[in-house]
Structures are given as structure tokens and as C-alpha cells.
């Protein structure tokens, strides 16, 4: 029965093709506006996330001792980054790894011939290397005594200490023989050791300026500088990094660390706020597109009203030959719903075409100081021509929305048609 009435409605639609095209055209524009504006927020969100760093940064939590003393507690009660704290952190559910790091407490430089480079030099347990979230570019993930893994920007920042001017010199740290110089500032003594760079890693993590060394090497240098043996009772780590096992658990783990009386900071937390921002932006821009769709709805309502006026006699006839009010309502609602559906489908196709055009334009846009794309709030090269991102959910939603707009706009005209008195309808001139 429904399919029979639908067949009738489809036939009716093709009576006034030009009017159908124009009415559906409004829906096309509205649907495209909704899709493209919302798709833009997905693209901007992606580019913002790309700016934050690679995905490993999202599950990374930096742990610090608390700066505030809770009321009723003495400074000694505040948890420090000691071995006991590390053990507690390991027990938090959702933790993939706890990575304690020991800082070199004396001056340390890399030396290549006459050139030197400073760095943030950190000692870690080699077994924890896989949890750092670094991607090796050269070498192996190994930290035997005397080995180091070097951050991506270290090699670019060598300089001649005797020169009057600072002129960075690039050194291929992986393939050049290097020495490691440790300076004890207290008495001016120096140690110089041959060092082997076992690996270098890619940029984009929080360790771009870091050199990793075996934790025992660092403790050794620190003991040499202080002249004292390390006491496990009072030993504290310079920093502790906690790796959550997924993006979703990061916030929970962060909160659990705070519950231990420590300070914790994660990108995940910031990401959560950023996602909220983009959700709001999506609603606002979606609403702007929705206004275009609302205007289209008035077009559909107008067309349906006209169609019903034109076909009043036909409505009377339909009723005379046995159509119920519901049949008439169904025929006209299917018609207006189809206008919405057709507009929605074409709108989706148009959006896909425009996505291609816009993304190509962005990808091909020149970058640099004078670039026309500098007004954009992101680096066009960073998003790789993905300014407009249309997820499947979005275009499916848009088609459903356009159909509902058609149905909604057609509801009142269709109800009027359904309630027409057949006698009056038949007599209309």
C-alpha cells in the first residue's frame, strides 16, 4: 500500500521538474552548508591535534611533587618523586608504564671536534625505552653503559665555543665520533668520555632536545660530582613520566595521580578541553548551516502549498474514488520528504566535490612569509590538504536531516490537503 502511494507521489514530483529542481536546490545548498561547516570543524580539530604532537603525547602524564601543602600536613608529608612513589604509581589501574628519570646534576656537553652542544640529559632504565613513545630514525633502542639516544634537534645546535658569534653548526651525531664532557662546576674538573650514539629519534615528542643515557651512567656522574654515594632512602627522581594505556584512560590516571597528593599534567586533559571547544564550534557552525536549511524548508512548504492548490480537484477526485484522509496525507508527505531526500543526496554529492576542490586548493597553496594562507589559524602544510573532513556519520546525518526538513515543511500543507472536503475540492474552479 505504502509503495503504491509512493509510486503515485514520485509520478507527481516529475510533473513540475523545474519547480522540483529549484525547491530541491534550496535543500541542496542548506545540506552542503551544514556538511561543509561541520566538516571544517573536524579539519581544524585534526590540525590542532597535529600541532600538539603525535598520538603518544596524548597518553603521556608528567608527574611533579605538589607545590602546596594541604591543610593539617607538614612539608615532610608531601609525597616526593622517590622509589616509594614510583611503586605507588605503578599500581594505578590504566597505567602502561611509569618512567622515572634522573637528571644529570652537573654540566654535560656533546663534543664533535671543536664544536660542542648542550642538551637536556636524562638517565632512564633501558627497559622503559619502549614506553617513551619515541620513533627511532637511526640505530637501535639500546642504552648500554656508554651509549646514548639522541633527540632530533641536538645535532642542529652544535657551535664553536671559541667563536665570537653564535653560529649553529649541523653535526650528524649518529655517524660522527663524539665525546661526552662532564664538568663539575664546584671544582672545575672535567671528565671526557668516548660515547656511542646507539640511536636517534623523530621530532614531535616532548623529548626533541633530550639525550637519553643509561640511568647508572647518570647516577655515576652525579656521584662523581658530589663525591657521595647515592642513598636509596633519600633518593628522588628529577622527573617521572606516566604512560596511560589508552587515550580514554589518560584522564582517569591523571586524577588518580592527583589523589596521591602529586601534581599531574597531561596533554589528554588539554585535549579534552579542546574537544569541548570544537564541539561547541561544531554546534554553532552547524546552526549557521541549519539556517540555510531552514530557509530551504520554507521553499519546500511554499512549493507544497502551491502544488496542493493546483491539485485541489485531484485531491477531491482521490477522495471520491475511495482515498482516505491518511492516503492523501501520505502521498503529499512522501512528495515533500522526497524533495528533502533528493536535495540531501545532491547536497552530499556537492559537498564531496567542494571538499575535493577546497582541500586541493589548501594543499597546493604556497607556504611561507608572503603566503595568502597565512591568515588561516593553522599551518596548511601540517594538515596535508585535509581542511574539510566529512565523516560517514556526518553525511548520513545530513541526508536524514534534509529528509526530515522536507517532511516537516510538507506537514502542514499535506494536513490541509488531507482535510479538504471532497465536495468543495471537486467544485473548485
Amino acid at each position: 500500500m505504502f509503495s503504491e502511494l509512493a509510486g503515485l507521489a514520485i509520478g507527481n514530483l516529475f510533473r513540475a521538474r523545474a519547480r522540483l529542481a529549484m525547491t530541491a536546490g534550496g535543500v541542496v545548498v542548506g545540506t552542503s552548508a551544514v556538511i561543509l561547516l561541520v566538516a571544517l570543524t573536524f579539519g581544524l580539530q585534526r590540525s590542532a591535534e597535529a600541532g600538539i604532537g603525535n598520538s603518544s603525547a596524548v597518553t603521556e602524564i608528567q608527574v611533579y611533587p605538589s607545590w602546596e601543602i594541604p591543610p593539617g600536613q607538614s612539608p615532610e608529608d608531601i609525597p616526593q618523586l622517590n622509589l616509594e612513589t614510583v611503586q605507588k604509581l605503578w599500581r594505578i589501574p590504566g597505567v602502561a608504564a611509569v618512567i622515572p628519570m634522573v637528571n644529570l646534576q652537573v654540566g654535560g656537553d656533546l663534543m664533535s671536534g671543536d664544536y660542542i652542544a648542550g642538551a637536556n640529559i636524562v638517565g632512564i632504565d633501558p627497559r622503559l625505552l619502549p614506553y617513551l613513545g619515541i620513533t627511532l630514525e637511526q640505530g637501535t633502542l639500546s642504552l648500554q653503559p656508554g651509549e646514548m639516544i639522541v633527540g632530533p634537534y641536538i645535532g642542529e645546535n652544535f657551535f664553536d665555543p671559541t667563536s665570537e658569534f653564535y653560529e649553529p653548526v649541523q653535526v650528524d651525531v649518529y655517524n660522527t665520533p663524539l665525546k661526552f664532557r662532564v664538568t663539575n662546576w664546584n671544582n672545575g674538573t672535567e671528565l671526557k668520555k668516548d660515547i656511542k650514539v646507539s640511536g636517534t629519534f623523530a621530532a614531535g615528542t616532548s623529548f626533541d632536545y633530550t639525550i637519553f643515557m643509561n640511568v647508572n651512567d647518570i647516577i655515576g656522574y652525579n656521584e662523581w660530582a658530589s663525591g657521595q654515594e647515592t642513598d636509596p632512602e633519600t633518593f628522588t627522581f628529577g622527573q617521572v613520566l606516566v604512560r596511560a594505556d589508552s587515550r580514554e584512560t589518560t584522564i582517569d590516571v591523571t586524577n588518580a595521580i592527583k589523589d596521591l597528593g602529586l601534581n599531574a599534567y597531561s596533554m589528554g586533559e588539554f585535549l579534552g578541553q579542546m574537544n569541548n571547544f570544537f564541539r561547541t564550534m561544531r554546534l554553532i557552525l552547524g546552526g549557521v548551516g541549519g539556517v540555510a536549511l531552514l530557509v530551504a524548508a520554507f521553499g519546500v512548504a511554499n512549493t507544497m502549498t502551491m502544488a496542493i492548490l493546483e491539485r485541489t480537484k485531484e485531491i477531491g477526485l482521490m477522495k471520491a474514488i475511495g482515498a482516505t484522509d491518511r492516503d492523501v496525507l501520505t502521498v503529499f508527505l512522501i512528495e515533500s520528504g522526497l524533495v528533502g531526500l533528493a536535495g540531501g543526496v545532491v547536497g552530499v554529492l556537492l559537498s564531496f566535490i567542494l571538499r575535493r576542490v577546497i582541500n586541493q586548493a589548501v594543499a597546493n597553496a604556497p607556504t611561507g612569509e608572503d603566503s595568502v594562507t597565512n591568515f588561516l589559524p593553522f599551518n596548511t602544510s601540517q594538515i596535508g590538504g585535509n581542511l574539510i573532513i566529512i565523516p560517514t556519520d556526518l553525511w548520513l546525518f545530513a541526508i536524514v536531516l534534509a529528509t526530515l526538513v522536507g517532511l516537516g515543511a510538507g506537514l502542514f500543507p499535506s494536513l490541509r490537503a488531507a482535510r479538504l472536503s471532497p465536495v468543495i475540492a471537486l467544485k473548485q474552479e
Partner: protein
Amino acid sequence: MANHNGNHRTPYISGYGLRKHFKLGGQVVRALDGVDVEIPKGQFLAIMGPSGSGKSTLLYVMGGLDRPTGGEVSVGNKYLHSMNADELARFRRESIGFIFQQFHLVPTLTALENVALPGVFAGIPREVREKRARQLLNTLGMGERLDHKPSQLSGGQQQRVAIARALFNNPPIIMGDEPTGALDSKTGQTVMNLLRWLATRQGKTVVLVTHDAGVASYSDRLLHLRDGRIVDDIPVAQQEIEDLHVIR
């Protein structure tokens, strides 16, 4: 009221005290003002009267297209005045085939599709619909023009398509509102003969509204309306009525 139609069978269509009053520009119009009517099964009845006499209103009230504001109207054992809109639609679908002066064919549909249209609302499958529509059009001599649009047909042909459509659900009653009003007299006669044939051969009850006395001569009985009242009720061609009974 006196029964002039020459037989004493129980009425098939009956209306008692029918009134249809409505307000138009502050004035109460009495389209029907107390009409009693009884129509036996198989009768060919013509309703005449000047325009505004209420003849079309009476037809539509008896056909379930319009509601009386007073009185009772029944067809068979169905009381139309107490039916809701859906029940009336079902009644029209099953019991009445309407023909109109302006044919009221759907311009975008072919002759075949127009005839089959009542089947859409009756929920009859397409193949069955089209087979029946083809049969009807063949019977009415329109077998060559199944795929013509109404604009490609003459007035008489269009009215034959409309009659085929009226017959689609095989209703016991055919009602016509000036069915020959838009046709020349020769074509009009063809259509009237067709309706006459339906009454005598197929036992349809036919009720026509007309202002053409020539049309009225095809009928068994003539009702005259003026100002919403029956002023005359005349049996015509008594002999044919009796022939009809012989045939049955």
C-alpha cells in the same frame, strides 16, 4: 412520500428528512431542506432542477462525499450519517463509482493508470490492477487507447475512461454529476447508452444529476428539485423497469 416508481421492494438507497444548511456571507443557505427519497436496487434515477436547487448536494450526500446537517441517509444496511471520515472513504471505495462533468482524469497518468487508480487506494497489486483496467477499457471500446494521456483523448473518450474508473472496484452504484454536460449531444447519447446498459445488463443502480431533459429520458424515474425540496417525482419508461425484472 408516495412511491411512484412502480415497485414495492425495500429501498436500496434511502434518505429521510435530509437537510444541508450552511452559512454563506451571513445568510443561511438551505441546499437541502427536508428531502425524503427511496431508490430501489437497479433503478436508473435522474435528478433535475435549476442550479442551486440542491440536486448535486443530494447526490453527494447519498454518495457519501458530503454529510447532511440533518436527517438520515442509508445505503443497503449502512447508515452514512453516522460514519466517520475513514468509514465514508471505505464506503465510497466499495459501493460508489463517481463520474463528473469535467471527467477529473489525472493528466499525468495514462488511460490505463487512471482507470486503475482506485485500485491504488484499495491496495490491489499493480499486475491485478492493470489487468482489470485493461479488461474494463476493452469492454468500453477503449482497448486501442490504453497508453494515451487524457490530453490525447476526445471528450467522449475521456468520459468513457472515467466510467471505466468508476467501475473499477465493481461498485453496485454509479453516480454521475452532469456526466454529459461537457460533451456534444451525439457523444452524450453514447455515454447515456453506456450507463443505461450498465443498469440493465449489470444491474447497477445509477443516479445522475442533469439539467438536460434528453438525458433524463434514459432514466426510469425523474426527481425534480427546487430550493432544496423535491417538487416532482415522475416514473419514466415503466415498461423498461418491468423488462428489467424479467431479465433478472
